[in-house]
């Protein structure tokens, strides 16, 4: 962590810039939904590498298992049966943290250093500094962080920051048998995605495209979607961005509010030393001789 701390470019609840001297290449994980066969090897690999064992849940009538992301399930294959053009399609999307360039979680977090962003683009939770308030959940446009009921800490995909730091790909990418998951520099992934989109268009998916939403400054997990015009089919927000309410809540209004507190105290002090206290005037005279005004 000591040297890795050189690579932290953003830190939650921190007003001064972190070390800026070093720069690393931005990375990205590309999820090509058109190549995914829903085998869940990525889910298994995530559990294995991160030593996570979620509780055994119940079958709710879908291949999707568990039903939702949890503190111990950081990635999840979501299965959608949709009919976008009148024909049934079975869409499978690997869900997990998008590692936004402008992370809503980090913006919202009130605890210094509980959420950090590395210069390679990975957004990590530092559970040791997490206070369990849930602001990251409120700030995230993708509904990713989960607070554990056991320890009140927030958890999510780390993009295997520990593996990436030593030059390895994330565990899910390593395990994917169809190369639906690819990992590399963001630039390389965008180029690869563009090739895949061209191929898909040739095959008749005229709305194929890349999901790298600009509203959050782009992401370090990007998708190739068959229906990029309708990300809602995959339960992806059409134009995700940090909500204006979160900006209002965490933005310039806070220092302005603090300034107003300070100013009000200063005004009070100046009033006291100029106008002075409001004392009972009558007490100086003989008290009982004065009838009420």
């Amino acid at each position, binding site marked *: 962590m000591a040297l890795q701390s050189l690579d932290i470019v953003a830190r939650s*609840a921190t007003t001064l810039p972190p070390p800026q001297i070093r720069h690393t290449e931005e990375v990205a994980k590309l999820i090509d939904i058109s190549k995914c066969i829903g085998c869940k090897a990525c889910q298994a690999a995530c559990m294995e590498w991160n030593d996570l064992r979620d509780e055994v849940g119940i079958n709710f009538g879908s291949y999707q298992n568990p039903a939702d992301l949890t503190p111990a399930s950081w990635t999840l294959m979501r299965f959608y049966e949709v009919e976008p053009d009148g024909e049934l399609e079975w869409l499978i999307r690997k869900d997990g943290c998008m590692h936004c360039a402008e992370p809503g979680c980090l913006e919202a977090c009130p605890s210094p250093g509980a959420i950090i962003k590395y210069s390679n683009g990975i957004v990590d939770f530092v559970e040791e500094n997490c206070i369990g308030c849930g602001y990251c959940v409120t700030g995230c446009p993708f509904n990713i962080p989960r607070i554990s009921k056991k320890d009140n800490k927030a958890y999510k995909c780390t993009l295997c920051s520990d593996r990436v730091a030593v030059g390895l790909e994330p565990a899910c990418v390593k395990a994917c048998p169809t190369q639906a998951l690819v990992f590399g520099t963001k630039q390389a992934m965008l180029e690869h995605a563009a090739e895949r989109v061209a191929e898909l268009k040739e095959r008749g998916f005229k709305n194929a495209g890349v999901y790298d939403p600009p509203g959050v400054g782009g992401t370090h997990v990007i998708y190739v979607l068959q229906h990029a015009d309708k990300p809602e089919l995959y339960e992806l927000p059409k134009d995700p961005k940090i909500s204006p309410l979160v900006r209002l809540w965490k933005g310039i209004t806070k220092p302005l509010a603090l300034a107003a507190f300070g100013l009000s105290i200063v005004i009070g002090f100046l009033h006291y030393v100029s106008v002075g206290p*409001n*004392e009972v005037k009558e007490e100086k005279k003989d008290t009982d001789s004065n009838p009420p005004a």
Partner: protein
Amino acid sequence: MSREEDTIVRYTASERINHWIVAIAFFAAGLSGLALFHPSLFFLANLFGGGPWTRIIHPWAGVVMVIAFFLMARWMWADNYLTAEDWQWLKQIWDVVGNKEERLPPAGRYNAGQKMLFWTLVASLVLLLVSGAMIWYGYFALYFPLWARQLAAAVHAFAAFVLVLAIIVHIYASIWVKGSIRAMVRGKVTPAWARQHHPEWYREIMEGKA
């Protein structure tokens, strides 16, 4: 120049205790809230044993503050209805801050400034309670959709801002108007104090006594 004796009861012991429970809960909720309000005040979390304890204590302190406030507000309620004279009082705010009380319409048990404070507290505490419950992840937050929680977070911060500002004014007013703190600590005021600051209230008491 001996001090006139305290003879008029302004606040009974139970009213005073109630007030100070609200005050202590306000400081607990307020300081822990400020720790989460802006990074420059996160050091306040140390007062509560660190970040997680701050997060745990904050909502409970808030609940105590709201409950205790509304117990207190129950017996203050009717004395805080605004009257026509109150609007005149507010128009003469420069006479108020200039200590020229004799020019003002006579105040009752509470003057117009105190009444404005009272209703500001009522409104901000209701907003804080509702919005606070909506972002209390330990219990209620996940019953609300994301947009509602985002709205609640913004409303909570705004209502807290209004409340803190109102309390700064309240505390300063008690330092400024001599005898006020004594009234809330020991409960009694002198007849001269009552005549000067709350003439209508003084008159009612005298008539009641007569």
